[in-house]
């Protein structure tokens, strides 16, 4: 054997998962080369052929006509009378000059030195390719010339792997020289991305689509998909305003583009339910992939639903030709609530309390003897610590998947429990998921379906977390929560309730959801590239809320829940979705054309009922003699509604040589929310891509730098998030509006119509660049977007004299602009493989037009403005300008109307210089929406070990906090000053962080704390070590000996470390929801459930 050159052609079959392999071959060829036959067999079976060109030159042409013949038989026929032999080894067919009877195992044993060279398909050497000897941990990496040298057994198998390329196993078979050309991996070339109503090869994408894989979520102890998505994809902005179990998340794609509903559309398995709750209820372990459609190019096919972006979720299915496989994954750990504030010893607290009074000319409360008594009396455990404890969190998922030649199946079960950190009877969140999916091919028909059921339950205290926290944290530590007789104590400062008593005995609020999701689809393949597909599906969610307030008596006085009320509310929402579409997909030489046209209906209907009893049985909570049905009960269907959207949509793609790509998408929507005549809207988009390095004149760039693709899109998207029936004036009954002679009578309220209500339209431009550099080990994606939303549906500001509110009007315009960067880099070493992924994004909005001058909205000292030229709902307030240091300062500088401050009070900037501080001196102070959101993932593997570090954060955000965490002894509600508040003004601390201590009712309080100002604004930027995983996977050999395919055990931790400017509160805490509505009132007072830190372990086993 002279110099033997083996060229390994590793070609993959298109759409592996979709098509599957077959061992049956159908051929009808006359007088063709063996190479052509091999190609055909490879196409049909997926088997790879290994041969050298020299060898095949000796081969004869063949003629073969077989139908569904076994592979072995076909090969036997081809190789008959050939000077060649073949051998089937796993998925490979090795062609050599010897007789077929000769097999590797007969080679004489012994060691040889192998020199090899690894190149890309164009013959460019690849450096850093990992070359290992299968079954051992021995291996090397190729050098700068793509070469390696290894001493191996003559019969060894070398495993070659390199990111972006398909890994191959090469049999040495006694050869001393190997030249291996690696093929670009199918993952890179043929990676399939789920897009609206179909899939596309990633290389052909022209829109801004980001793909999220299960690896991005694996092993993280997140309780739901939202939590797991945080920081994973650029400009997929997830905020958790309330970290308590079961609470909802803020979810935005590319920030805030409208003053109306900013919720992205969530599509699960093709069903556009329009229900974010479905995503919260989904078992993250069931997710196969997610696509984030960000621009008009990608999203216009969802037309009026897509202005806020689209998240497509595809759930797992079984695989064809797969033995039934059982997998288990689970985590178990404990959550530790980290309290960021701390009180002072009661005697010190009393001294400061006195100071706050004497500073403003009021007598002190505590005599020196009282303070001494507090000092000698010592302190009890702070109430806030007493109502919190460690709580376990665990999840378990089991699935069974498999498939035959024509069908697949999946069964999965999941359970998650997150106990609450509040003490009390079993507070917390539990979710159960069941899912079954099947697909089947029958001739030209492909059918599939999914049925999923979720039940979750959130058990909370009956009072509300915010006020419990407040009551607990603002009580000085000289007070005792429970006395020696076990009585829950109230005291001179706990106004009403004892928080421990409320938690332990005060009843509960039980919120359960039942979600049935189902879909069935069928696709018929027609000749000439046509196919027809129909999808029917729906989602039915039933929410049940049962509130039971139990009576708890306190000592010496006070009762909680004396009305012993029970509330029972049911809401049912049904989403249905029917789609029918025709698809076309065909190639003509270098031209590839595909298209889709479809029609769909989405309908939503719902109703609710509730009943509310007072004075129920004190033990059972059941209605009894003397019980009263409350007036706001409604046993009949409440708020029934139906809304419907009929749509026609289509897509046309054209590409030439996969180099020039054009796509048109459009949707024509008709909505029941608008009146006849103006209810239809047309939403088109166009996008184009150019893979410039495929041009011959760019060959040099491609070889030296890598591949580049430019993308651009422009289109108009819609939003129909308006209430139902708003084009009609309606009159609804107000139960018990009034009474005469103690008999209630009903009133009537009216809701004025807006007959001109129509679509909100978002014109969106997107430009992007995708780069695959350093032999595809470095991927970079850049995007820029600019979205102008007009006809924004919003409740207009109307004069008070109009006397009522109006429904939505198309009365606003805003711009949303930003960019995204995503970088992925993989570094192969001899022992270690490192991978890095960074994403960074910005979004920035500005109101362009708002009807009326402006809208100021306030809640206590929080004030926001909506007006042209500034971001939506910007904070407004006075700007601090130091303190009045002396009484001559007080005389000299402008003051707030009606207030005579004292030295140590805040001096505000007189913006207009008129010598008085009033509304004309308000500044725009910031914006509550996060900017520069980022995520960073680092992963390193060393043999069986892996380490994964995930950091997530926000580069810029202004957060607002008022109340007791900022204002010591706040408004006679709080009796504490916390340690972080001690840097207050005194004559010797003239540049303090906080003003002079003052008492409620004093001009100083009015001046310093009762007006909106930047005293209450904090820097909400942070970086958080969101997840760390350290895992070990058993080597396949050991695993096999235990009769399992794969085992991984790992440590996992969440929220382990946070770097933030604001130290006394979780920087993620926000009072705003996704639409920048102030919906978390307790957060603005810092009364937020402490963010739990999770430590635990996990286990993944595949049998």
């Amino acid at each position, binding site marked *: 054997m002279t110099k033997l050159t083996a060229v390994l052609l590793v070609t993959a079959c298109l759409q592996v998962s979709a098509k599957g392999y077959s061992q049956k071959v159908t051929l009808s060829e006359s007088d063709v080369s063996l190479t052509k036959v091999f190609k055909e067999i490879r196409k049909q079976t997926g088997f790879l052929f290994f041969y050298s060109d020299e060898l095949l030159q000796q081969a004869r042409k063949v003629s073969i006509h077989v139908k569904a013949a076994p592979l072995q038989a076909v090969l036997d026929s081809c190789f008959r009378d050939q000077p060649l032999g073949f051998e089937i080894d796993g998925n490979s067919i090795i062609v050599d000059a010897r007789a077929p009877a000769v097999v590797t195992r007969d080679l004489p044993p012994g060691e040889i030195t192998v020199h090899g060279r690894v190149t890309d398909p164009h013959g460019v050497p690849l450096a850093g390719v990992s070359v290992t000897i299968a079954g051992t941990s021995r291996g090397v990496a190729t050098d700068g010339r793509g070469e390696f040298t290894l001493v191996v057994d003559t019969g060894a198998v070398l495993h070659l792997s390199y990111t972006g390329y398909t890994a191959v196993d090469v049999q040495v078979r006694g050869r001393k020289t190997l030249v291996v050309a690696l093929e670009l991996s199918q993952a890179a070339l043929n990676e399939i991305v789920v897009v609206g109503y179909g899939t596309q090869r990633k290389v052909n994408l022209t829109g801004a689509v980001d793909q999220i894989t299960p690896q991005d979520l694996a092993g993280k102890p997140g309780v739901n998909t939202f939590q797991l998505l945080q920081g994973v994809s650029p400009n997929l902005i997830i905020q958790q305003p309330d970290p308590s179990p079961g609470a909802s998340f803020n979810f935005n794609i590319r920030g805030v583009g409208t003053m109306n509903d900013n919720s992205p559309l969530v599509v699960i398995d093709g069903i556009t339910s329009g229900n974010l709750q479905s995503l919260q209820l989904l078992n993250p372990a069931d997710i196969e992939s997610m696509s984030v459609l960000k621009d008009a190019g990608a999203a216009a096919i969802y037309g009026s639903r897509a202005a806020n972006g689209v998240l497509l979720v595809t759930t797992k299915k079984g695989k064809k030709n797969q033995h039934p496989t059982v997998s288990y994954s689970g985590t178990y750990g404990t959550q530790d609530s980290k309290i960021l504030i701390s009180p002072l010893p009661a005697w010190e607290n009393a001294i400061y309390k006195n100071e706050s009074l004497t500073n403003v000319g009021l007598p002190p409360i505590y005599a020196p003897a009282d303070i001494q008594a507090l000092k000698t009396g010592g302190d009890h455990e702070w109430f806030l610590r007493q109502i919190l404890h460690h709580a376990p969190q665990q999840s378990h998922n089991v699935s069974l998947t498999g498939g035959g030649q024509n069908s697949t199946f999946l069964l999965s079960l999941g359970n998650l429990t997150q106990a609450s950190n509040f003490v009390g009877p079993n507070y917390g969140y539990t979710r159960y998921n069941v899912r079954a999916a099947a697909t089947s091919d029958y001739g030209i028909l492909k059918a599939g379906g999914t049925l999923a059921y979720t039940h979750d339950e959130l058990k909370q205290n009956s009072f509300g977390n915010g006020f419990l926290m407040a009551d607990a944290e603002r009580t000085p530590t000289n007070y005792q929560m429970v006395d020696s007789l076990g009585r829950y104590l109230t005291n001179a400062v706990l106004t009403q309730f004892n928080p421990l008593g409320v938690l332990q005995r005060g009843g509960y609020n039980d919120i359960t959801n039942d979600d049935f999701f189902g879909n069935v689809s069928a696709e018929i393949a027609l000749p000439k590239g046509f196919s027809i597909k129909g999808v029917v599906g729906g989602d039915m969610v039933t929410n049940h809320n049962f509130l039971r307030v139990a009576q708890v008596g306190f000592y010496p006085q006070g009762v909680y829940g004396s009305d012993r009320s029970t509330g029972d509310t049911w809401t049912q929402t049904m989403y249905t979705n029917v789609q029918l579409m025709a698809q076309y997909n065909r190639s003509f030489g270098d031209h590839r054309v595909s298209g889709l046209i479809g029609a769909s*209906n989405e309908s939503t209907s719902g109703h609710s009922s509730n009943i509310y009893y007072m004075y129920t049985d004190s033990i059972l909570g059941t209605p009894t003699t003397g019980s009263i049905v409350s007036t706001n009960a409604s046993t009949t269907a409440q708020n029934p509604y139906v809304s419907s959207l009929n749509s026609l949509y289509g897509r046309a793609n054209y590409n030439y040589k996969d180099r020039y790509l054009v796509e048109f998408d459009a949707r024509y929507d008709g909505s029941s929310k608008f009146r006849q005549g103006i209810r239809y809207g047309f939403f088109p988009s166009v996008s184009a891509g150019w893979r410039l390095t495929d041009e011959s004149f760019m060959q040099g760039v491609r070889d030296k730098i890598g591949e580049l693709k430019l993308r651009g899109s422009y289109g108009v998207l819609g939003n129909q998030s308006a209430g139902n029936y708003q084009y009609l004036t309606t009159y609804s009954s107000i139960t018990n509006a*009034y009474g005469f002679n103690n008999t209630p*009578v009903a*009133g009537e309220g009216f809701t004025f119509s807006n007959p001109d209500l129509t679509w909100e339209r978002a014109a969106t431009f997107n430009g992007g660049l995708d780069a695959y550099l350093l032999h595809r080990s470095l991927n970079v994606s850049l995007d820029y977007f600019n979205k102008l939303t007009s006809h924004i549906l919003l409740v207009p500001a109307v004069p*008070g004299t109009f006397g009522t509110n109006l429904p939505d009007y198309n009365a606003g315009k805003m711009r949303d602009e930003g960019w995204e960067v995503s970088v992925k880099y993989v570094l192969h070493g001899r022992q270690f493989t490192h991978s890095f992924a960074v994403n960074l994004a910005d979004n920035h909005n500005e109101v362009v037009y708002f009807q009326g001058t402006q809208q100021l909205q306030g809640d206590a000292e929080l004030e926001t403005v909506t007006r042209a030229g500034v971001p939506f709902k910007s904070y407004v307030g006075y700007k601090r300008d130091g303190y009045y240091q002396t009484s001559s300062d007080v005389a000299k500088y402008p003051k*707030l109307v009606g207030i005579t401050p004292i030295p140590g009070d805040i001096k505000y900037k007189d913006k207009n210089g008129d010598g008085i501080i009033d509304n004309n001196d308000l500044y725009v102070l910031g914006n509550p929406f996060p900017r520069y959101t980022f995520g960073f993932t680092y992963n390193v593997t060393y043999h069986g070990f892996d380490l994964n570090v995930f950091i997530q954060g926000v580069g810029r955000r202004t957060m607002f906090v008022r109340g007791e965490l900022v204002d010591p002894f706040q408004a006679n509600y709080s009796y504490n000053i916390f340690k972080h508040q001690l840097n207050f003004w005194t004559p010797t601390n003239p540049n303090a962080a906080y003003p002079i201590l003052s008492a409620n009712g004093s*001009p100083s309080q009015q001046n310093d704390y009762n007006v909106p100002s930047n005293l209450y604004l904090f820097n909400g930027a942070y970086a958080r070590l969101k997840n760390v995983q350290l895992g070990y996977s058993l080597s396949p050999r050991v695993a096999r000996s235990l009769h399992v395919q794969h085992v991984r055990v790992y440590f996992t931790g969440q929220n382990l470390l946070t770097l933030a400017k604001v130290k006394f509160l979780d920087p993620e805490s926000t009072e705003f929801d996704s639409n920048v509505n102030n919906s978390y009132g307790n957060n603005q007072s810092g009364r937020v459930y402490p963010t739990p830190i999770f430590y635990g372990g996990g286990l993944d086993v595949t049998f």
Partner: protein
Amino acid sequence: MRSRYYFIVALFAVAGCQKLNQAPTDRYTDFNYWTTPANANALLNTAYSQMFRSDYFFYNEGLSDNAYVGRGDQNNTFTISSGSYNASLGRFDDEWTTHYQCIKSCNVLLDNVEKIPGYPADQKAQLIAQTRFIRAFVYWQLMTWFGDVPLFSHDISLAESQSIARTPRAQVLQFVLNELDTVEAVLPKSWDAADQGRITSGAAEALKARVELYEGNWQDVAKICDTLINTSTYGSWSLVPNYSQIFSPANEHNSEVILDQEYVPNIRTYAWTFDFIPISAGARDNALAPTQDLVNDYLMLNGDSINQAGSGYDITNPYANRDPRMTATLVYDQDVWANANGSTQTIYIKPGSDPNRSALNEYVSNGGFTSPTGYYWRKYFDSTAAPGEVSGLDLILIRYADVLLMYAEAMNELGQMNASVWGQTIGALRARAGFTDPNALSFNAAWSQGDLRTIIRRERRCELAFEGLRIFDIRRWKTASTLLNGWVHGAQYGDPSVDNGFVRVASRIFDPTRDYLWPIPTYELEQNSHLTQNPNY
């Protein structure tokens, strides 16, 4: 082309195209609402409910020298009374909007009621009259706070509301009076039992008296009150024998009630007393406390004021021998409280006085949740209230005693006060209150008009304390600039060297060049450039 069209139609048909014309099933629309008298009545009921607000009823007292808001800032009462506010304060727009919402209800009803087929004429006339009364009442409230306000008597469009200007106060006043004149002719003197609480012709007359009173049109006040007191043209009223019984849940719609806001136990309720009554009586805290100034104004039982020489007032035993209305209205140290279950308790307020160590009601200087002044309220305590002081007790907006006081005031201002009018008014009220000393009951011819003015105004304050009228009285008398400037005091629990030991609770500022009119809310100025601002805002 045609086949493609069919294809699209077919796609829609198969895709289960839904009807896009959807109508609500739980609400009326314009097409079917104005069809029955019952629907018109329902809208009138809404207007009744919008006529007055229970929170304003109580907390307006904290705007005056009768009470102090020491906790929270309900309805911005604390902020306004402190004097440090501007036109963007929430209460102003709240007050403005609340009233125009009620006006909207009235105007929508009045504009559409004629569409209802088969509406019996007399019933319709009465419905219209009640609606117009409510609208007039609300306009009057608006002009009392804000002066000139936009006036319109039909349902205005959005465009109109964005350009409408303020109507001069005098025209609004004339409108209110004309409306009241019109409706009193249609409204009945009384209603059937089931309709107790509806507006009567007497209510229209009494409201007219109050409107004229605030204008200082003494002739008109005297004339209207004379008719109400001395004739039965508009009905007959009499004083309830026991002062505290006026406000008892068992005694709603009593002989003294002329106009009220109706509540229904457990169904249409308020719970404000939860923050006013003594803590040990079931309050959660104190958010509105009587002032020492009010306490000081109650007479001695002998009819002398406490600082009159020889009154017998003992500063060390300050609550003895005082006007019985004081204890019927508020709670002072060691006052006795009747519990809902019939038992009684002593309310210990003086620091360190409570023999029971819980000391729930004791005064704590600027600290605890007890009263910051050392006083609690008793008036409008509902012993039948549901837990949390959820009460269905009606709130009286105009009562007969007020008519008597208006009459006395007008007659005195006209220089016509005499023993007979005195006996019919102040004398009668004091006798009913429990005074027996002739010095308290009888008229003294030696009193000057000024003396009488002091006496009548004090009488008005004590009789009507905690009924929401004080702030309007001191504004129309223009005494607010004196009474609402400086320290608010509480009981004598403080440092004796400061204000004789009467605790300083908070200081107030009232700017007479500005504060006699409330500002037009900033928000409204932004929405309608034709609105002007009141002086000095």
